[in-house]
């Protein structure tokens, strides 16, 4: 199979994921309403938190509110509650069929995740528009260049999140009881990525710990870029750290995958 044909196949898988994410009308509507309600509620909470306070840990109220909005939107895209298709297919024993396809299983899974992520974009656009309408969000710091840096950082953040999801999903090859691990992962990722509360507010020891984990590269780094919290040198360093995580996690995924393949081939799916 040529690489062009493989790309076509992956695009088809991604599009199928978009379609199935949008297949049930009530689900689409509920997911959209859910993220809008969440945005309103986090805005209310953070405005209440900042009532009568100007600045805490060097962060002012409007920034904290806007951060919370974007955190909610990022979580909605990056950390969906549903399980990865990979785990389900291992569980149902359909993995053998997937392995026979001319496109690698890892690209298949990633294409599916990208598709599911893409399906979340329209509702997130709505959420951002709502936040703008109620004055809870402002344009990114640093003009066009700042926007570009934010887009790059977001893309890297999404890559980190997809790779982390993939790694967790691949534990399905070793145990059929992935449910608990996924819940723990989701909870840790949500907190440690800074999606719930920025690392700025965390006590020094906690922030120090989280900065060594890949999660902060998913949400906290892009949002820091958005709010212009990182100067020239720091910005470059932050993007480099994100890129490093992408490379490290990709290598790790490759390693785990070859072990998993070995396991499937030797012991049967």
């Amino acid at each position, binding site marked *: 199979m040529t690489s062009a044909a493989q790309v076509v196949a992956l695009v088809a898988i991604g599009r199928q994921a978009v379609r199935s994410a949008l297949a049930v009308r*009530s689900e689409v509507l509920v997911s959209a309403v859910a993220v809008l*309600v969440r945005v309103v509620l986090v805005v209310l909470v953070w405005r*209440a938190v900042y009532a009568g306070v100007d600045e805490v840990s060097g962060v002012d109220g409007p920034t904290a509110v806007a951060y919370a909005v974007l955190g909610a939107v990022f979580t909605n895209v990056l950390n969906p509650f549903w399980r990865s298709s990979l785990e389900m297919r291992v569980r149902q024993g359909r993995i053998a069929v997937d392995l026979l396809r001319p496109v690698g299983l890892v690209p298949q899974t990633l294409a599916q995740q990208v598709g599911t992520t893409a399906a979340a974009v329209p509702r997130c656009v709505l959420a951002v528009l709502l936040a703008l309408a109620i004055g809870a969000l402002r344009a990114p710091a640093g003009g066009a260049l700042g926007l570009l840096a934010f887009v790059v950082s977001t893309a890297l953040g999404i890559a980190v999140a997809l790779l982390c999801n993939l790694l967790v999903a691949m534990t399905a090859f070793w145990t059929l009881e992935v*449910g608990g691990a996924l819940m723990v992962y989701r909870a840790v990722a949500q907190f440690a990525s800074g999606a719930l509360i920025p690392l700025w507010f965390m006590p020094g020891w906690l922030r120090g710990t989280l900065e060594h984990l890949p999660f902060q590269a998913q949400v906290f780094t892009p949002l820091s870029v958005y709010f212009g919290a990182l100067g020239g040198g720091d910005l470059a360093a932050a993007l480099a750290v994100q890129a490093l995580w992408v490379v490290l996690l990709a290598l790790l995924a490759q390693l785990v995958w070859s072990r998993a393949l070995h396991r499937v081939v030797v012991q049967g799916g």
Partner: protein
Amino acid sequence: MADEAGEAVGVAAPAVRAPWRPQLQEVSPLRAWWVLMAASLKVVFAYRSNLVNTALGSVALQGSQLLFVGVLLHRFEEVGGWGFGEVALLFAMRLCAHAVCTVPFGQHSVIDFLINEGDYDRLLLRPVSPFLQLLAWRFNPGSLGDLSLGVVVLVVAAQLAPVDWTPGTVVFLVLTIVAGGLVEAGVQFALSSLSFRLRATWSLKVTVDTTFADFGPYPLGVFGTVGSLALTFVLPLAFIAYLPATALLGRTDELLLPARAAYSSLAVGPLLFWAGYRAFVHQSRHYDSPAG
């Protein structure tokens, strides 16, 4: 009817056997529920590692919110005028009420699956209320995580919160937690009932569940007048923990409602629970078994 047996079909008669027509006893719904629940528990405890895994998952999920609230209060000292001990009590009451909902009634979450896969047929073939069978379909070990974390946080929070604990307040606390659980269960039952028509209510239920979990630990005042009313009368979050907590903490003066409302969850809980159950039974008439 047994004596008509022989003449009906001309299959060669095997060795003489008595027709099998035992006398069946009546089985009470409660007993049937317990028989099924005991079987589900047996399955869960047979897979110990899954039990531990899933319980830990639930602890992590609820714990991340606890951590968030903890960090928030560490920096800001109060939210909506409530200090650390007060918010901790509110959080613990909400989580315990959640466990009261999930431990015995958590299986409402499989209703989509049962309906779409046709397993609901199986419930209808048994001489037991399908609703009770649904509740006992499987036991979700995650609910034990909710319960353990809830109890631990409650014990700690009870000491941090400025409440004068007397036998009366303790009894009120326990009753009110049960009532809060019934509120949540009633809401989830009502949402489950939509499954018979919509086929997919999972997102809706998860959305309500996470809204309760993520926005339950705040005094309602932070959501403003419209928000407070919405979280009282549209999505009855206030009845789960906030209203009774104002009674315990002597903060009923901040309510938009009369102070008596702080005690209303004791009545609202059972009422919503019953209404949710009725909605489920009513909507289940629309069940269309999937083809095949």
